[in-house]
């Protein structure tokens, strides 16, 4: 098992546990257990979003989804975003607690703030080292995009 890595976003340390896999396309972590893939937002994603106000899913459980198909929408104190499937497969369950109160995403993004469970293709996911490298390679570009200079 890999060690935890910390990616610095400016001064903010984004913690990336070593025992998880990651989806580079949408900054989600993945915990595999009993054939199920559980997803949530990485610390990097949570830092960009800040306080989550509202979360909305546009597909139902039991639906087959394609990689990068839109599955939902999120609104936070600083941001809005459409959300997309981290891989192809079937969504088995959404974290119902979040729909009543999404603050667990900010408080415990790797635990109680989990988003949904899927059965699907885990091959697109990478380990913490590759995810860290991806964040590093794209940090400049991401900052520029956020500042609107690109």
């Amino acid at each position, binding site marked *: 098992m890999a060690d935890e890595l910390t990616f610095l*976003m400016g001064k903010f340390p984004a913690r990336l546990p070593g025992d998880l896999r990651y989806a580079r396309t*949408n*900054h989600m972590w993945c915990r595999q257990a009993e054939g199920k893939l559980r997803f949530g937002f990485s610390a990097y994603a949570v830092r*960009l979003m800040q306080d989550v106000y509202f979360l909305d899913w546009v597909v139902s459980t039991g639906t087959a989804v394609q990689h990068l198909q839109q599955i939902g929408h999120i609104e936070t104190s600083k941001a*809005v*975003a459409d959300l997309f499937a981290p891989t192809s497969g079937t969504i088995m369950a959404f974290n119902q607690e979040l729909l009543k109160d999404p603050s667990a995403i900010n408080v415990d993004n790797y635990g109680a703030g989990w988003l949904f469970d899927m059965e699907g293709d885990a091959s697109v996911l990478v380990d913490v080292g590759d995810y860290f490298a991806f964040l590093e390679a794209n940090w400049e570009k991401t900052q520029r*995009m956020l*500042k*609107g200079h690109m």
Partner: protein
Amino acid sequence: MSRHRLTVVLSQAQGKHPAKRALEESLVAALIMEPGLDVSVVPYLYDLDAEHTGRLFLESIQGDMVVLSWLFSRAAFWLLDRDGIKGHLGETQLKPPAADEDEEDAEEDEPQAPKGIGAVAVPDRHIYCLDLRDFNDHEPYVAEIRRIAQECRQRQEAKQAAQAQAKPALVELGLPAMAEKNATLSEETRFAPEQILKPPDRRWYPVIDYSRCTNCMECIDFCLFGVYGVDSLERITVENQDNCKRGCPACSRVCPEHAIMFPDYKTPAIAGAPVGNISGLKIDLTKLFGGGDAISIAAQERDRELVRDGREAVGLTVGIPKRQAGKHEEPKDDLDNLMDALDAMDI
């Protein structure tokens, strides 16, 4: 000195949201007490079709007008324009309370004046659109409406003074068509309150902001449902509003000038939030979270509607604007605030 009256129309929220209804009621109660105002209530502006009495009522208003609605000001103004309820854009000074102190600086940044084709056949009166989501109580709105009433009065007086100098005889400034129409209406039958407030069906259609629209016609190329058309002046119009597929915002992503709004869409940028003005506008992280660029999202949304309609998906093969790959789609807002805030927070 003529008595200038200002018409104030409050457009209700959809549904029966108790907090919204409460604000509407307290606002109307306060406005009725104000001198010089003619106050009316209509249903949700965006849902009114051509036959709805509420819309006929709006069309009959000749002079200056304030419209309070649960829509962005830009969305309300241009949807009225499309409905033939035209006027000069009234500048409001109502700004929602800044969400954080960073926004004070951002407001100094005036966006460049957009070079759109503008509205046509605009009668000489002003329409002020106020967004009822900006404040939770009625006082700021009443204060702003008082200021607007004052501004309209002064403008009218200045105009009449200028006219009096130019021509000794009294000139009735031109809305002859409207005056005629008004004369044939019987107030009781046409504008019965229960007719004006009849709940309309929900509608979904794009609204063009002509102050930004350059008439490039990319939208009419892109939409495969016949929503767009061209008028007798060769200008793009939203001709068949009800052809538009409910919930689909694809064409607004394709517009290079961000001139297309869907007032009911969840993302502020598409719903008509002020462009280039950061207060209330949030960063769209969709691209970072797997969204791809605006054009490909638009093509996916369009395909979804085509397939639902029993037609073939076309992907990017039809009606896609040819632009440089990688061109930045977002409005060029100064979003340094977020990164600076991230750096400043020493957690």
